[in-house]
């Protein structure tokens, strides 16, 4: 399966970078996610992921490094996590890491809400902005 790489945009339309590696099972979402049609942006990502979990064996590691996402994007992130949960429920091995930089005081609640909804365990990891 081909890797899914989408270069995010940081001009007028803040869309994240997507780097999903089919071979290593490491899936990364980083940057900011708001503006534009979020559902349209995430549709091919969800499609890729649904195909991928059918053929994936071994471990999936998903690393989310979003410094900001709007509520519309959070729906799509939830959809991604539901698919990952499907994989886990079918005996897949999953690690979900959520990286945050400490400026957004609500991120712990946000991540907790994603865990409540999906039933996934999400590791909250603090990082320095310089490492982004």
């Amino acid at each position, binding site marked *: 399966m081909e890797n899914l790489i989408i270069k995010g945009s940081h001009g007028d339309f803040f869309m994240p970078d997507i780097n999903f590696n089919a071979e290593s099972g490491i899936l990364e979402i980083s940057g900011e996610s708001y503006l534009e049609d979020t559902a349209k942006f995430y549709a091919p990502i969800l499609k890729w992921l649904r195909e991928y979990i059918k053929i994936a064996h071994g471990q999936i590691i998903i690393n989310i490094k979003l410094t900001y996402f709007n509520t519309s994007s959070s729906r799509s992130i939830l959809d991604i996590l539901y698919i990952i949960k499907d994989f886990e429920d079918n005996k897949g091995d999953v690690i979900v890491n959520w990286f945050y930089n400490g400026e*957004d005081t609500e991120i712990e609640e946000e991540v907790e*809400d994603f865990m409540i909804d999906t039933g996934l365990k999400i590791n909250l990891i603090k990082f320095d902005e310089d490492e982004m």
Partner: protein
Amino acid sequence: MKDFNLYEYDKLFSKEIQISYKGPFDKHILTIIGNYIKTIIGDKQTSIKLFKIFIELAQNISYYSSSQSKANDNSGIGILAIREADNKFYLHSGNQVKAEDVFPILDKCEIINSLDREGLREYKRQQRNLPRGEKGGAHIGLIQVALTSANPLDIKVTPINDEYSFFSVTVVVNKDID
């Protein structure tokens, strides 16, 4: 207005107003004002709160205002002002809505204002799990605004005529006193 005098217009604005904008809320405007808020206003955590609230309110105007700009991808037209007073920031946003949409919005705002933080989070999770496109999409934004500001939404509806009303939301952000 026969002789429009910009000075008279300018005098209507108080010194407390940091930013004001009226017009189409397209993505370029959102980006410019959003970046301005992130870099200019207050300390980092306060400016991030204001930025998050601004994006949700501005996107609500953009998608749901009943007055739209044909020249700008039908972006909703509305008005926004950020005011600083009494050690607080006030974010005011307003747009025209169809009279028939007023009651459902007021209903949701009443629910939002009746809930504590845990209740709001639960309400947001519940609304977020509804299929996309279902009416109520805008309310997740308002729930998030209430969560981020940690203050009730101040809602005002002014009838314009039989068909339209003016809907405005004021959100207060306390400056962090650490």
